[in-house]
């Protein structure tokens, strides 16, 4: 087991790659009572088209299957895994993103038992026709719940406007129709292809003793056998055009307050490793300068009643796609959309050394704040790990980013209106009917 010390933030990270390919990270946090663990596979909603393990044929599986599989993993022959965790005083959960599926628990007691349970249930699939059918009702209600959520609809409407072919535009949970096509055999196919230990990362943070814990993990993994795993062949190239598919999207829903989001599509999202992290942080700094609460632009928009406290911005850079997004609730969403686009395209001269320095300080302080959260550390570390980047490089990278770096990223990312989609959620019936 290797120990890496990060002096400035006073953390030591322990890591080991086991013979079966599983990479384990352990981060002890002094003073914490809680242990938080994530067991994550590099497999998410965008991985629809791939070659199944030991097959030369490429298949496409129904939308929403990664998320469906996540639900079904919690059931085994003896029953519900939630029960096992709660008997051991742990709360368990899972989530599926575009690129990952993570299983997690947090607990303040029985850490060894809970780690064993986590490894064992994720490494033991058990699906029957009957339980697969039963899950369709539950996930159908989950989909209905998101259908009523204007923020969720706005976000996916935006992705649909930006992407022509890339599956990031497909809802993570799929549709009621697509999940109805899912069979037990489909689930086994996806499981066998993507849940090999060599495609997974185990991250445990909190009240842990690394030496004894790694020994327990080694033993647990030695007792199991896995077939040899050839490199996974999944579709990576979706022939996605550089520009957005649609410049504007409108969704009619019975909302009281309309919503407006602008997405900026990265034309060529090919970065990984440190370069990805540098790029992501540079875009964050630009968004802070353009739209942060200290900017005269925020002040103006707020005074004109175009934005309120719900205004937000963010950037996401993943394998094969990247975008930034900004917006919020607004009584005049079309006007806001135009203003936001104008600001984004005109803000370059405002990116000065003094603005940059202040925003770098802000980002460094906020990163320290996030390090109080075991959940943040485990999920973000894993996300960056799958992109060959290191979470704990954030502060040094921020410190080293200079004005030219940030301006270069600006020129690359905020090219023209052809990279931008505006998505508006509004109650059309009310608009028309008065």
């Amino acid at each position, binding site marked *: 087991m290797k120990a890496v010390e990060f002096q*400035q*933030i*006073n953390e030591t990270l322990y890591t080991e790659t086991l013979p079966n390919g599983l990479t384990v990270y352990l981060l002890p946090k*002094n*003073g*914490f*009572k*809680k242990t938080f663990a994530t067991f994550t596979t590099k497999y998410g909603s965008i991985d629809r088209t791939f070659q199944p393990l030991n097959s030369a044929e490429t298949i496409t599986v129904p939308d929403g299957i990664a998320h469906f599989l996540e639900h079904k993993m919690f059931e085994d022959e003896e029953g*519900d895994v*939630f*029960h096992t965790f*709660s*008997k*051991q*005083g742990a*709360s*368990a959960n899972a989530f599926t993103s575009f690129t990952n599926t993570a299983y997690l628990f*947090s*607990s*303040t007691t029985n850490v060894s038992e809970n780690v064993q349970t986590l490894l064992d249930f994720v490494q033991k699939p058990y699906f029957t026709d009957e339980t697969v059918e*039963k899950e369709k*009702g*539950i*996930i159908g*209600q*989950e989909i*209905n*719940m998101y*259908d*009523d*959520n*204007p923020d969720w609809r706005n976000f996916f409407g935006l992705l649909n406007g930006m992407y022509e072919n890339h599956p990031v535009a497909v809802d993570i949970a799929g549709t009621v129709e697509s999940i109805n096509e899912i069979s037990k055999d489909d689930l086994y196919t996806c499981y066998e292809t993507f849940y090999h230990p060599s495609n997974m990362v185990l991250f445990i943070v909190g009240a842990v003793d690394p030496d004894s814990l790694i020994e327990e993990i080694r033993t647990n993994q030695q007792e199991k056998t896995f077939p040899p795993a050839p490199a996974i062949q999944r579709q990576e190239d979706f022939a996605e055009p550089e520009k957005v598919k649609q410049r504007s999207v409108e969704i009619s829903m*019975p*909302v*009281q*307050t309309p919503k407006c989001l602008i997405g900026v599509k990265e034309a060529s999202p090919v970065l990984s490793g440190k370069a990805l992290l540098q790029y992501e942080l540079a875009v964050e700094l630009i968004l802070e300068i353009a739209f*942060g*609460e*200290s*900017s*005269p632009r*925020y*002040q103006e928009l707020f*005074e004109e*009643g175009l934005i*309120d*406290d*719900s205004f937000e911005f963010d950037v996401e850079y993943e394998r094969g796609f990247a975008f930034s997004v900004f917006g919020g609730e607004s009584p005049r969403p079309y006007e806001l959309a135009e203003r936001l686009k104008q600001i984004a395209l005109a803000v370059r001269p405002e990116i000065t050394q003094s603005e940059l320095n*202040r*925003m770098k*300080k*802000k980002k*460094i*302080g*906020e990163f*320290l*704040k996030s390090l*109080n*959260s075991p959940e943040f550390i485990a999920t973000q570390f894993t996300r960056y790990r799958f992109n060959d980047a290191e979470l704990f490089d954030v502060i040094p990278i921020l*410190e080293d980013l200079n004005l030219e770096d940030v301006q270069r990223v600006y020129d690359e990312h905020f090219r023209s209106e052809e990279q931008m989609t505006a998505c508006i959620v509004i109650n059309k019936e009310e608009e028309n009917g008065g």
Partner: protein
Amino acid sequence: METMPIKTDHVGRMNIHVFPTRTYKTNTIVLQLASPLKEEDASKRSVLANVLKTSTKDYPTRQALQERLEDLYGMSLSADVYKKGEWHIISIRAEIANEKYLRDTEPLTETAVQLLASLLLQPNADESGFDEAVTADEKRALKQKLASIYDDKMRYANKRLIEEMCGGEPFSVHAYGNETAIDNIDPASLYSCYREMLQNDQFDLYILGDVAEEECMRWVDHYFKDSDLLQGGHVKPPRPQLVSSRNKPQEITEQQEVQQGKLHLGYRTGIVYGDSDYFALQVFNGLFGGFPHSKLFMNVREKASLAYYAASRLETHKGLLIVMAGIAFEDENEAKSIIHAQLDAMRAGDFTEDDIAQTKAMLKNQLLEMTDSPRGRIELEYYNALSQTDLTITEWLSAIDAVSFDEIKQIGEKIQLDTVYFLRGKDGSAHESS
């Protein structure tokens, strides 16, 4: 079980709570101002909180104050209102990096305390009131925030349930008040609300982080001196109405254009935080609907596949138990009868010692996990301040352990259904999931 030591001092109406700890990379300061919940005050206090956080005498605009916060390594500063039982609470929170982790070592925590004190005591106002434009901006922003609850159907259904269930009781007032009350605010009435707050509220200051008690007391003496807060005695806690004013439960149905029905059931427990059977109620709720192993989750979701979520939660300072489930419209009656059957089973003592042990393990875990976050730790301590009790974490844990089978069963006798609220789709436009 080791828990963080707390030092509490009182000066007039101000309680000062200091938690020295080196667990975090930031220091947290929270000011809580509590007043009995009143319809005529809630909106004013909400706007006031937002106006106060915008500026101070020294930093008279949003831009100036935000720039200062960014320079302080992204010190976060937020002000919000919420209700706990029949208290209306203005919560002003700050979090700031511990300078130990930074390249320059300007002392940040004292600066943060000073800034927080000036936010409260040196606002950007004169005797005629707050700035007219700022007041108008924040009135508009609050109205938008209130309106946006309508667009989040789970929150909306919960708000409607409480309005119907507790009509005529102070608890039916939303923390933001209502639209008419917001409209009636002007800079002068806002300023008198500010004066009343300083003269009458119960005031609790929490400082958590790498600090010593003596320095905190020195800062308080220095930055809060001469303020009204140091005068006067304790505020008498409001005593909420605990029993229903109805002879039999009422049923409310509302129609909107939604995909999923929201079924919310409100029960009276008659038990509030600080009561002798409060912990038995916690275990009862855990068994009934608090966790994934609970009766509601197992029966409404896992067995009948009717819902993605089906859970119960407590309003701990008002003595309410709320059940909520997201279901298809046509499943309303089936869902209701399953929920009623689960409560009957609880009353009949249809749970085992194993179930109890599992639930207690989960409750204790939840509590201990809460103590790992600065915000959670402070919130727990604040429960005591509001009910003028003095329970330590250790006492809390042993009180949960001490709850017996019979005590849980007896809780079932006290619980009474008050109101059933169902939000369903409009006839004709209903989307029926198959």
